[in-house]
């Protein structure tokens, strides 16, 4: 029996949703095609990393997020950026190192974020680091009462890092609302997945963390979306982190300089026949959701948009040299006035007034799915908080609660202030 779940049969989406998915995949591809041309014209300052053939993964997964949700894409998730609302000009100016780019030329590629508005955390080149970071985002969101989900992506290659394990394990032990998309494109630079990882489905590793997982066809955008959407819902409802493996193929090299001659011809031919956009076009045509006229309209809308965005980027200045020395430190509230967005009662969190006991109020916290039947009390969520400092000496021995023994009825703390916690709920 497979460890990871297969996605449920895709439910019907609305016409607009079907067309949105198509639009963003086409936009994703056209943005990258525009950048390939700019690269050949020597207008891209550094490297260019393509996601040709992987558009369904980026677009389908990010489309499952709401505006309030957070995401941390990886280098090939330009489609996710577009879905979340990043204008193409930001992607062009980033690659061209322009002063008008989100990082003002300080970093390139899709290494940029937006904390205040779009809720995007910037990727870095060291793989896996974003998993604990997004775990922290989810933890803070829960603490503030925001009911958000955090999503991040990792490749088959990046899943071998130590921090992948550290991050997923922390997320699982915290029951953080985190969805990790494991984008298995079969190649980590020149090393095939078979030589990196000795198991069939990378998502099966989820079992070791006591979390749920899915395996999905990464070239089927509707399947990716419906799976991600189900995962996001489960995570938002407090079900803990979820790992989704999307199986796909990287059709270009690691970056523009890499002709990827190490890829067997038969493999490339197989996946070229499974182009996610072509497959989806066939589906939309069959379902009478898209005709030649509609397709032309989308094409011309994208062309007009990208023409304008590219021109903006090309006409933008390079950053003035003196800005190189600026911005290492935040200089204080005039630089960043950091205020959290509370969506629960703050007075719950301040030191309790007399007679009010501080207790953990989130249901199911710390109880991961056990490896056998039922729920196993595996973490400190099962240790009741002490009533007050004077009673410290009578605290139960924590080690007795840390043993992962199956229990029919897990011990839970009484959620004394559940009522007030709900006040902040949406």
């Amino acid at each position, binding site marked *: 029996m497979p460890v990871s779940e297969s996605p449920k049969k895709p439910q019907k989406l609305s016409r607009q949703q079907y067309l949105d998915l198509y639009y963003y995949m086409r936009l994703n591809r056209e943005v990258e095609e525009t950048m390939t041309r700019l690269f050949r014209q020597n207008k891209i300052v550094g490297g260019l990393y393509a996601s040709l053939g992987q558009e369904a993964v980026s677009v389908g997964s990010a489309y499952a997020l709401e505006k309030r949700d957070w995401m941390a894409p990886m280098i090939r998730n330009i489609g996710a950026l577009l879905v979340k609302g990043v204008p193409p000009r930001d992607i062009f100016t980033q690659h061209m190192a322009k002063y008008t780019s*989100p*990082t003002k030329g*300080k*970093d390139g590629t899709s*290494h940029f974020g937006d*904390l205040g508005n779009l809720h995007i*955390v*910037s990727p*870095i080149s*060291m793989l896996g*680091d974003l*998993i*604990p*970071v997004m*775990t*922290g*985002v989810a*933890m*803070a*969101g829960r*603490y*503030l009462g925001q009911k958000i989900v*955090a999503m991040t992506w990792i490749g088959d290659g990046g899943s071998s890092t*130590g*921090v992948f394990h*550290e*991050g997923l*394990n*922390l997320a699982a*032990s*915290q029951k953080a609302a985190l969805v990790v998309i494991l984008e298995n494109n079969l190649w980590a630079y020149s090393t095939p997945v078979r030589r990196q990882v000795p198991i069939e489905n990378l998502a099966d590793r989820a079992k070791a963390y006591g979390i749920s997982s899915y395996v999905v066809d990464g070239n089927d955008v509707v399947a990716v979306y419906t799976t991600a959407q189900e995962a996001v819902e489960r995570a938002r409802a407090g079900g803990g982190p979820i790992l989704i493996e999307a199986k796909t193929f990287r059709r270009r090299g690691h970056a523009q300089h890499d002709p990827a001659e190490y890829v067997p011809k038969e493999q490339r031919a197989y996946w070229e026949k499974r182009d996610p956009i072509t497959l989806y076009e066939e589906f939309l045509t069959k379902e009478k959701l898209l005709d030649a006229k509609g397709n032309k309209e989308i094409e011309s809308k994208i062309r007009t948009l990208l023409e304008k965005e590219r021109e903006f980027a090309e006409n933008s200045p390079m950053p003035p040299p003196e800005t190189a020395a600026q*911005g*290492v*430190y*935040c*200089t*204080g*509230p005039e*630089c*960043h006035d*950091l*205020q*959290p*967005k509370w969506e629960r009662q703050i007075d719950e*969190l301040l*030191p309790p007034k007399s007679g009010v006991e*501080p*207790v*953990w109020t989130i249901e199911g*916290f710390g109880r991961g799915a056990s490896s056998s039947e039922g729920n196993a009390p595996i973490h*400190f*969520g099962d*240790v009741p*908080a*002490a009533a*007050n*400092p004077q*009673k*410290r000496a009578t*605290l139960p021995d924590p080690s007795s609660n840390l043993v992962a023994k199956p229990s029919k009825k897990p011990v839970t703390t009484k959620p004394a202030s559940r009522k007030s916690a709900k006040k902040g709920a949406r």
Partner: protein
Amino acid sequence: MAPITFLEAIRQAMFEEMAADPTVVLIGEDVGVYGGAFKTSEGLLEKFGWERVIDTPISESAIIGAACGMSYLGLRPIAEMQFIDFIACCFNQLTNFVAKGHYLWNAPAPIVVRGPSGGGVHGGPFHSLNPEMYFLHTPGFKIVYPSTPYDAKGLLKSSIRDNNPVLFFEHKFLYRRIKEEIPADDYTVPLGKAIVRREGRHLSILSYAAMMHTSLEAAEALAKEGIEAEVIDLRTLMPLDEETILASVKKTNKCLVVHEDTKTGGIAAEISAILFEKAFHDLDGPLVRVASLDTPVPYAPTLEEAFLPNAQKVFTAARDLARF
């Protein structure tokens, strides 16, 4: 108020900041039920609950990553390293992600990473480290290394309130060995300001953390020989208080730097360069360094004693410099 230990000063700083500001949370290994390996967070869980005092798996990278992610939503996490030596386990997360965020993508990470550091307690090669210079060479961190309970409390409060990632080193030799009376009301000590601990005119001794006390001890002995050493406690290595350093050296014309970190590439090397750049004509002698040997921290008491600077070594070096 009764005098309190260095350790209690740190506990009070965290307690008071958490009481005053619900965005302050503590995350680390054994910080909750156990109250921290050295009991610096004792009583915090009982007072603030599981959501704000977070016990984690043994995963330093995840601790720093999660703290950073929490800070993006407006929280001010304090991340504890059980021993500061283990900060090496999250070096990448700190130097590549946390430190560069503000410069690269305008993302401040107001987190404090704190933990027990330093030798002299027979902790051996993996529980005695002074890793401050790894991070001084990474633009983006503020680096604090206090020597007294008053400073520990005031500087930790400033660190928590700062919008930048602050590495806060707590010399464990000082945890229970020194006591001091401190004000009952809320106060802070600003980051980036050194302090003159003892005035003098014959030479300047610059130091910090446990070695500050060693330097004061040596200064007492020097005074008996008629040598008046000015002892400066750097308190913050980044930003470094160049103004106070230069003012002192321009007065005494001689400079000795004492640090417990190993000699090569220690803060003394940086101070030496600053003096060459900015006080070349004021120097009447070489810059002298008293620091630990360029070896791992050895375990046997006889070896560790040979490894570490002490008052005798400082005294001898200072006397020779004063007579130069």
